[in-house]
C-alpha cells in the first residue's frame, strides 16, 4: 500500500508561496493502476516526486508499505556525464543487484548498442527514455512511477514497455501521469484529476477523462 495523508506542497515564489498541492488524501493498493490527469502545472510531477520520495511534502505524510521505483522521467535518476554502462553499474550497486544480469537486460531492452559506451548527455530524449525504463525495469519494484516518459518512444519501444510492464509485470502497481487519454484508458483502473491543488479520484476512468476534458 501507499498511503498519502493530507499532502501539501508549496514552493517559495517571490514574497509569497505557490501552493501546488493542497491537502491530498488517497491510497494505492498493490497491483492497482492509477492515472494522474491534469493540465500543465497542475502538480502531477510534483505529486509523483512526493510519492517517490524525491522531494518532501511541506506537510502531510507519504507512507510506503511496498517498494516504489524512482520516478521515470526525462531528467532524474542518472548522471549525464557518465556513460550508459556506468549508470547501469551505479544503479546495480545502490540497489544491490547483480550487474551482469542488469547489463544484459539493459542491452537487450534499450537496443542502444555501442551508444551505451557514450555519456548519457549525448543521448536523444527517446534514447534517455529507453535507458531510464530499462534501468528501472531491471530492478523489481512493487510499484512503478511513470511521468509522461512513455510517450516519447517509438512504436517498437512502446511495444516493449507494454510487454514488460503490462504483461510480464501485470501484478505490479503503477502510477502514470499523462496527458494521453488513450494511454490512461488503456492501462489504468482508476484515475485522479488534479486541479487547483485538489485531487479527485474516479473509479471510472472514462468519467475522469470527461472531467479532465472540460478543464
Amino acid at each position, binding site marked *: 500500500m501507499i498511503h498519502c495523508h493530507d499532502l501539501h506542497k508549496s514552493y517559495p515564489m517571490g514574497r509569497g508561496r505557490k501552493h501546488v498541492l493542497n491537502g491530498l488524501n488517497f491510497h494505492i493498493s498493490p497491483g492497482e493502476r492509477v492515472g494522474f490527469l491534469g493540465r500543465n502545472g497542475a502538480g502531477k510531477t510534483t505529486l509523483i516526486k512526493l510519492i517517490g520520495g*524525491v522531494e518532501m511534502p511541506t506537510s502531510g505524510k507519504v507512507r510506503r508499505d511496498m517498494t516504489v521505483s524512482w520516478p521515470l522521467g526525462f531528467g*532524474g535518476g542518472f548522471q549525464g556525464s557518465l556513460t550508459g554502462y556506468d549508470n547501469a553499474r551505479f544503479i546495480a550497486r545502490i540497489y544491490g543487484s547483480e550487474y551482469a544480469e542488469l547489463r544484459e537486460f539493459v542491452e537487450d531492452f534499450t537496443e542502444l548498442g555501442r551508444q551505451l559506451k557514450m555519456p548519457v548527455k549525448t543521448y536523444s530524449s527517446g534514447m534517455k527514455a529507453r535507458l531510464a525504463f530499462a534501468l528501472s525495469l531491471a530492478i523489481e519494484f512493487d510499484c512503478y512511477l511513470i511521468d509522461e516518459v512513455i510517450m516519447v518512444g517509438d512504436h517498437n519501444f512502446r511495444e516493449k514497455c507494454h510487454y514488460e510492464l503490462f504483461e510480464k509485470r501485470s501484478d505490479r502497481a503503477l502510477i502514470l501521469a499523462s496527458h494521453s487519454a488513450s494511454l490512461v484508458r488503456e492501462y489504468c483502473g482508476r484515475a485522479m484529476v488534479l486541479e487547483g491543488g485538489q485531487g479527485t479520484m474516479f473509479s471510472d476512468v472514462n468519467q475522469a477523462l470527461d472531467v479532465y476534458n472540460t478543464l
Partner: protein
Amino acid sequence: MASLAQGWRIQTRVIGALMIRELTTRFGRENIGFLWMMVEPLLFAVLVGILWTFMNGPTKHGVSVMAFCVSGYIPLVLFRGSVSRSVGLFQANMSLMYHRQIKIMDFVLVRFLIEWIGHMMAYFFIMILLIALGVFPVPYRLGFLLLGWLYYSFFTLSVCFILAPASEMSEILEKFMPVTTYLMIPFSGTFYMASWLTAEARHVVLYFPPVHAMEMMRYGIFGHHMTPHFDYFYPLAVSAVMLAFGLLLCRRVRRHLVVE
C-alpha cells in the same frame, strides 16, 4: 534491530557506489586514475617545503623545516580541499536524489572521504620518502600523529557538514568562502607551534580545535624537540557540537530541496 542492520548495509553499499562514481567522474580511468587524488597535496607540501628550506635554512626552533612544513601543509590542504568541495554539493548531485536510499549526508561524507584518503596517502608517501632522505624524523610516537590526524579530520568533516547545507540556503556564502579559508590559516596551527607564541596568543589560538590537533600531530613527529599544548576533550566536544548542528541543517535543507 533488523531494520537498523539493514539500513547500515544499504548505506555502506550506497557510500561505496558513490565513491566509485565520484572517482570515475573526477579522475577518469586513464593513466594513474584515482592516484591523482594524492598528487595535489603531495606537490603542495613538497614544493612549499623546499621553498621554506631555502628561505629559513634546514632547521628552525630545533626542528626540521621540511618536516614542519609538510606536517602543517597536508592537514591544511585537506581542510581547504574538503571545505571547497562541500560548497554547492547538493546542486551538483541533484539527479541522484531520485534514489531514496541515497541521503544527502552520503554526499558530504563521500566527498570528504575521498579527500581524506587522498591526503592520508600523500602524507604517508611523503613521510616515507623524506625519512629515507633524512630530512624528516622517524615519528617519535606514531599514535599521537594518528590521533591528531583523526582530530583534525573530525573537525574538518564537521565543518563540511555545516557548509554543504548552508551553501544551499544562501548563495552569498560561496562568495565569502575563499577569503574565509584564507583568514582561517592563522587559526589552523599550520605555521607555528603553540609554544612559540606568547601566553596570550596561545590562549586565543587554543580556542580553535585544529590547533590542538596540529599540536598532537607534531608531538607525534618531533617528540621532545617541542612542548605540546593540547587538550583531548575540548576539540572533540566542539567538533561534535558542530557536527550535530550540521546534521540538523542537512535535515532541514532536505525538506525544502527542490529537485529538477
